């Protein structure tokens, strides 16, 4: 049975006879933006994020037959995304890009100047963390993953997640204190 799949690519329609391929296409169309958001936080650059998502999805595509159930696609792609991110960081030839374009997005007449300031601060601060610290922060505070889930995702121990989180927050407190609760408020809790 041929399945029409409206690919997100410029409205073009892809036609495939393979139902597994069709399910994967639907998954990409429906969920790639979620991966893209996480990838953007990890890389700080939209184009690097696209590359990361593309690579993670390609890996997922190659494992479609093994994954079987469609519900596993996203978990697999997400894990691949974080693994690729950390692996790229380990490669010495990989040069990280520093954020620069985000300041243009926060207009002076914005209704949410405060939130824009926080975004810019966060964007710059994330670029000054190590990729692993960045990954831990994204998993814990963007994806709301538990320490155990984050450890599973990054293939490390829970202790590593705790220590990396602590170091990342300590660094953020120095370079972007506005993002974190005040010390006296935290002490009062």
């Amino acid at each position, binding site marked *: 049975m041929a399945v029409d799949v409206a*690919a997100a690519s410029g409205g073009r329609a892809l036609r495939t006879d393979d139902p597994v391929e069709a399910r994967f296409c639907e998954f990409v169309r429906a969920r790639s933006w979620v991966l893209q958001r996480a990838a953007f936080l990890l890389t700080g650059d939209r184009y690097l994020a696209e590359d990361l998502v593309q690579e993670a999805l*390609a*890996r997922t595509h190659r494992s479609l037959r093994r994954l079987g159930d469609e519900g596993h696609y996203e978990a697999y792609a997400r894990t691949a995304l974080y693994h690729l991110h950390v692996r790229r960081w380990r490669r010495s030839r990989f040069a990280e890009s520093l954020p620069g374009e985000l300041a243009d997005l926060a207009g002076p007449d914005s209704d949410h100047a405060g939130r824009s300031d926080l975004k810019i601060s966060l964007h710059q601060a994330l670029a000054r963390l190590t990729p692993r610290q960045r990954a831990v922060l994204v998993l814990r505070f963007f994806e*709301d993953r538990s320490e155990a889930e984050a450890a599973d995702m990054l293939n490390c121990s829970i202790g590593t997640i705790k220590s990396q989180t602590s170091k990342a927050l300590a660094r953020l407190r120095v370079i972007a204190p506005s993002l974190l609760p005040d010390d006296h408020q935290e002490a009062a809790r």
Partner: protein
Amino acid sequence: MTGDFDRLRGAMSDLAEHGGSPDVYERALHTSHRRHRRTMLATTGGVAAAVLVAVGAGVALGRGSPHAAPPATVQPLPSPTTSPTPSLSRSPTVTPSSMSSSPSTSSRTSRPPAPHRSAPTGGCTVSATTLDHAPGARHPVDPQTLRCWHNWVIAAPLNPPGDGSYLFRYTAKGGWRFYAEGSAFTCTDLGIQVDPKDPPPFCG
């Protein structure tokens, strides 16, 4: 701990919106297929290289022998008999003769298959090279002088230090071993009961 970080959470959520929502389906598909092709090419190339190396090694070994033998063929095992005459898996095809009328039955193939220096004569299914590597062997034997009888082989050395010949014996446990050297042997000393219809060629 994470409940105290609403500002950080909010900023992350806002910042993530800047990631956009690009189309990556076709690109991911293209990358996946490209990787698959690369893997297939690498696998095929590896297999081809392994085959070339194996063929090249075989050719090099064949050329390295001073008396290159014709390509060895695997001799099919004949019907079993009680005789423990050895059969080497890479022995060349030979013309049957009365001397080796008893077929080989042993399947001893653990000894490393050495290249044959020459085709053995006299209907032997053992090569001179095998005998040269036999424990106790003293000098290389002349492949033209091999004469077999059951699990015994007598051969003259290539550069004879004397006038004696070498006697080798095969056992299932130890394979081919150098047994004795001399110009004449006595079958009773060797523990061989002589059958007048099938006398050993090395007993006086």
